């Protein structure tokens, strides 16, 4: 099983390995700065568990687990 951003618990960090998928969603993630080598951190989950608040490149962004699964992380 590949480790993805969706697997991280709040306050955990990871390094991006790659973004899977060739569609517009993956493209938008890359454009926002989810690029290989970047550190991502889960700040918290919304009260109902989804979406997650992510910190990357110094800004905060909310995304659902569904999208976070496209972001593969380096193995620890």
């Amino acid at each position: 099983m590949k480790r993805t951003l969706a697997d991280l618990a709040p306050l955990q960090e990871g390094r991006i390995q790659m973004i899977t998928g060739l569609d517009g969603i993956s493209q938008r993630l890359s454009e926002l700065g989810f690029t290989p080598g970047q550190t991502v951190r889960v700040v918290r989950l919304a009260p109902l568990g989804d979406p997650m608040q992510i910190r990357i490149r110094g800004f905060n962004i909310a995304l659902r687990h569904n999208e976070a699964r496209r972001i593969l992380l380096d193995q620890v």
Partner: protein
Amino acid sequence: MAATASSASIPFDEHSPSLRHSLDRRYVVAVIGNPNTGKTTLFNALTGLTQHTGNYPGVTVESALGELTVEGDRFLAVDLPGTYSLAARAPDEMIAVSVLLGYGKDIIAPDVVLYVLDATNLERNLYLLTQIIEAGRPVVVALTMIDLAHKQGIVIDTEALERRLGVPVVPVQATRRLGLPTLQQALRKAVHLESCPRPLIQFPEVFSREIDTLILSLPRTNSAPALPRFLVDRLLIDASGSVEQELVRQFGEEVSREARIARERLASAGIEVPQVESDIRYRWIAETAEATVRRPLTASHTWTDRIDSIVTHKVWGLLVFLVAMAITFQSIFSWAAPVMDAIDGFFKTLGMHVGNFLPDGPLRSLIVDGLIGGVGAVIVFVPQIAILFGLIAVLEDSGYMARAAFLMDRVMAGFGLSGRSFIPLLSSFACAVPGIMSTRSIDNYRDRIATILIAPLMSCSARLPVYVLLISAFIPHRTIGGVVGLQGLTLFAMYMIGLIVAPPIALVLKRTMLRGESVPFLLELPPFKMPAWRVILFRMYDRSWAFLRRAGTIILATTVLVWALSYYPNQTRIAEEFHARRATATAAEQEHLAIEEAGTRLKESYLGQAGRAIEPLVRPLGWDWKIGMATLASFPAREVIIAALGTIYNLGNDQNEESVELRETMRAEHWPDGRPVYTPVVALSIMVFFALCCQCGATLATIKRETGSWKYSALTFTYMTSLAYIGALLVYQVGSRLTGA
């Protein structure tokens, strides 16, 4: 590529004569940047009171426009929608691309692009800038949020950045007007020099060759110039993006095929599209940041983090959210009420005074009941719209709105929408008109349409009087188990109906006519800040004015139409009959005669005739023709039913929901066989009908205005009316059998 300084020869949008006139000697500056960069604040500071919303030539969606003059050079500024990339997927992004390239019928390319660069978020903000520079227009960069960056210990070497970008970079603080004169000079210089920056990044050799091939192989008419290179880049990179769709529309499927083949050739050469673009741009950005930005080793714990730990907290966050929503909801209800009453009172008094000056007859009736009443019915919405948009602007500008969407997203995802739909739906409990207008913050078109279509199902404040009248008159004043009042429970149930019916409808819409590629929920949570008052006041003014101008005229027209239907045919027989009766009546009877005459006229009018004609249709709902007619009359505005009932029952039209007289009369109504017309079940059937029906001309006009087509107004009207009829039918048929009434 020279800027088109003499733009006068380009054909203009026919409905903007003022633009055509004034653009003759004006430069166009397009303001663009990521969302939440202080773009609007800067735009306001530059254009001041000249700001207005309108159509940029050739663009059908309204944008903010404004003017500025620098040493005799006049500029028209257009505030383009905030976007992260020119890889256009959303309509907003496509507008930005079309304007930047001057691509599309009648669209004028800007003479200079003003790029708003957020200093606290330099890397992500530079991404779009590298794309913009490739569009081949003069660019000036305004560096915003420097004070915030300083607080976080971020230091930017502006001169080094300027050298690296090859375009002027001007630090500004719009709220304190710092740096604005320098920025204006830079804009002026840019349009005079017409110097276009060189692309910052280089795609791999193979990629560039592929673009050359693609340009040559694309179908085109002989006369048309070759496509701008930047557009072909986008075609190749953004598979099934807006550019590809637009080109397919113009030249056919062949475009798609050529692009796909090119992508496959690139893939076999080891270049993956679309990743190649973000890889290259972010590599350049990393080098740039390395050379120009110093930041502390450990990120400081900012105010935003502290506020966030409360407002997105599992317990406190929900509590803050509930309080914020309660205040929003309550303010539209109660803060607006006194102003609305005052407006209502003013138009009633005005009507009365004007009426006294005019002779009895159609002219008086048209002016007093039709025109003055109609204008009043439009203006009465303005306080709610202004207050709601003021509050929404505060929530948005402070950064809280994104948190509210974050909190509610999971709930809304359950029926195919996202967190962004929450506020518009909540606002619709006060009034669907501002609710629908506030869907503009929903970036996805299909989500936005679905939200607009279900918004009128939320029980708005105009339904409340109908509920109050019927509940207080016909629902027994009893309690269940000694705790829950039956009347209160009924009112609660009426508010719940819309909430229960709306989600499945949204789901059905999203699975059928609004089906499409699923859109990611990517929502930036920007830093918190104090809202800028100018932004808020402008929004209140702008939204209210937009409503008055567009929806207002249509509402007025329908109001006058209903007046005409209830006034004509103006039968002289009735007039003569009452004239004769008045001659013999005592002074005390005179007033009652006038009211009775109005009632008789209404019964004989086209509306009355229609009421009788539809009686077979409303009998299964448990209604008589009078209820049917009052309901017909209230299609342009549902609250009209109370005045209509007052007129039908010969009580005069100044009845309100608290009126004891009206309640007593309704209780005394009987069918010819002696059964009472109004039973609790009939009252419920009427209420359910009103809860589900779209009896609101203002809403339908607003839907047309916001979606640009009557199609969605017609759809809303049809589905809601059907739903209302079925709902009322079920309530009466099941209810009357259960109660044996």
